[in-house]
């Protein structure tokens, strides 16, 4: 094995036998000795291979149930892979979870020693670092109290303070960022920054994409028990977020179809929507490249004659904040549309939208201002996502900004 590789995972698969098929009482042995013995397998990992280099900060991301915790547990040696091999080059401390082995009936002091032993420290070594742990956790006064009398925040602080004493080449961290208040999270962040400087190998499993982008050099996206992609952490983080956005698009699409059927069966609609399409470079798309112009194409059928009509759309983000809107009155003024006529409107939009999921909402107004009246409205006529933007993900929109600095 190469000397600069810290962990090598090769062709690892992990199958579980589903618990309800498991037989673990005498009654089931006697009642049906032969039946019920089929192995119903669940494939938690399927032929997973990758390498983590020494000194690398490596992220593993994936949804709940994607197999990422199984993968981590295999690397930690908690699970034995069904197939494949894992080679760890160097010492490894898995704190899959903070405070493993903490016992609520023991005092804080005793728990430090127990937890320290689990991390591989002798009593003497813990003696030496004891004061440092207590100071870091800021729990001096509580050390002789039982852990069950600690608040959950205090428990986490104690666990984290012990955990960071672990002096190993490779650290496995699972969701440590998900707990604690903001002061604690700051401590986590400081700790990560410090170990990153020390060139330790760290494998971080997290749902927090900002943390992954910030700390990890590379990341691995796992979904449906297989590796989807390994690469630059910000690219992987975006892929991960797009999984959710795509799912949400599917859901919105389903809801719209349902709603349209209901609306159609109710009579008296002035307008029927034939289609709403998003196109870019002349092709119909669901995912729009950021910073490149795109079009929204609306095809309507008038069920009755429309007088002085104005057809408008707006685009809202996931938080239902309206970012853009456009209507026909600006270009054409009010238009008259005869009955049973198809009308196609194309809105060309210069794309300033940030990454994320957007919905197009449609409305038709009849009559000139001030006697205008909304005769048709549809929320979520079409959804699309924007990908590939490299700007700050928290900005709602972006445009070229010419920055000049004078000091």
């Amino acid at each position, binding site marked *: 094995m190469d000397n600069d590789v810290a962990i090598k995972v090769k062709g690892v698969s992990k199958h579980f036998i589903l618990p309800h098929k498991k037989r673990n009482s005498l009654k089931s042995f006697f009642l049906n000795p032969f039946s019920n013995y089929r192995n119903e397998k669940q494939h938690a990992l399927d032929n997973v291979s990758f390498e983590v280099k020494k000194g690398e900060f490596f992220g593993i991301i994936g949804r709940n149930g994607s197999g990422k915790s199984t993968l981590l547990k295999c690397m930690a040696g908690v*699970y034995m892979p069904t197939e494949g091999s894992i080679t760890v080059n160097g010492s490894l401390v898995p704190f899959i979870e903070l405070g493993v082995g903490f016992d609520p009936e*023991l005092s804080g002091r005793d728990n430090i020693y127990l937890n320290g032993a*689990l991390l591989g420290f002798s009593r003497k070594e813990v003696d030496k670092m004891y004061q440092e742990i207590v100071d870091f956790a800021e729990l001096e006064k509580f050390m002789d109290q039982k852990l069950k009398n600690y608040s959950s925040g205090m428990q986490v602080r104690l666990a984290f303070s012990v955990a960071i004493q672990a002096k190993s080449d490779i650290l496995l961290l699972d969701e440590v960022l998900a707990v604690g208040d903001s002061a604690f999270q700051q401590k986590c962040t400081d700790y990560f920054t410090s170990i990153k400087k020390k060139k330790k190998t760290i494998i971080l499993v997290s749902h927090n994409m900002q943390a992954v982008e910030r700390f990890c050099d590379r990341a691995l996206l796992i979904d449906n028990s297989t590796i989807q992609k390994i690469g630059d952490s910000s690219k992987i983080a975006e892929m991960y977020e797009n999984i959710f956005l795509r799912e949400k698009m599917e859901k919105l699409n389903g809801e719209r179809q349902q709603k349209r059927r209901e609306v159609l069966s109710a009579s008296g609609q002035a307008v029927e929507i034939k289609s709403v399409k998003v196109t870019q470079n002349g092709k119909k798309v669901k995912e729009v490249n950021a910073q490149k112009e795109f079009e929204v194409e609306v095809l309507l059928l008038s069920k009755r004659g429309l007088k002085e009509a104005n057809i408008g759309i707006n685009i809202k983000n996931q938080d239902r904040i309206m970012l853009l809107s456009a209507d026909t009155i600006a270009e054409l003024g009010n238009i008259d549309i005869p009955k049973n006529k198809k009308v196609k409107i194309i809105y060309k939009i210069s794309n300033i939208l940030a990454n994320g999921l957007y919905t197009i909402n449609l409305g038709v107004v009849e009559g000139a201002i001030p006697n205008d009246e909304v005769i048709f409205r549809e929320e979520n006529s079409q959804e699309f996502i924007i990908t590939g933007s490299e700007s700050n993900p928290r900005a709602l929109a972006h445009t070229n900004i010419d920055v000049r600095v004078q000091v």
Partner: protein
Amino acid sequence: MSSIKHERFPLKKQKSLLLEMIRTDFKLRYQASALGYIWSILKPLFTFAILYIIFALVLKLGAREQNYALSLLLGVVLWSFFAEATSASLVSIVSSGNLIRKIDIPRYLIPIASTTAAFINMLLSLVVFGVFLLLGSNLAIGWHTLWVLPLLILELVVMSLGFGFFFAAFYVKLRDLNYIWEVIRQALFYAIPIIYPLSRINDIEIQKILLMNPLTQIIQDARSVTTYDKIERIPQVFGSGLYELIPIIFAILSLVIGVWYFSRHSKYFAEDL
């Protein structure tokens, strides 16, 4: 084929982890009681007192036996260790499920910790037994006691550990095991001449059967070097000392099988729990 190659927990670290686990075991066991550790001495003493009152004073079971009371105490101490070590080991893996699912510690340390905790309890009780012994008269002690007794205790520990390993791993698969073992333990208690002297059994064939039980052999041998040197042992009952090897082989075999079964299944504890 699957494999995990790790360098974790060198032997020195395993030792400190084991010590910490035993320490925790004791702390947890007595943490809420006023008398604390003293209970580990009081418990066998009370058991002994009850048995003594019923069987020695009321039923006069050991009237013809030399040092019956001391023999009874020694029997109770050794039996309590076996019962405690095996039952504690049996549940040890399952009750450490939280640990096993989250961290890769050498899993065999868990039943070893349970057995060691029971062993420490036995040592404390043996100290009490020693005090009573020195107060007694007509004893069977000599220099040979100093090496025979530890060897017998070693045999007992080896066997208990073997049972402990096997039970701890098997309990993960079969959760009825603790009830089954409880019943067997009760039966065993009466199948071993703890409260009754073996001499009370008139049928030599039954004596032979009872003595084939390694626990009987250990207890009788232990008595023979402390309380009563003429007590029935394998060489007398069988007429040949060679039969003595059978219980010893059984004890060693139980450890071998226990360790083999445990190590075969320990890889999958995390998912089977």
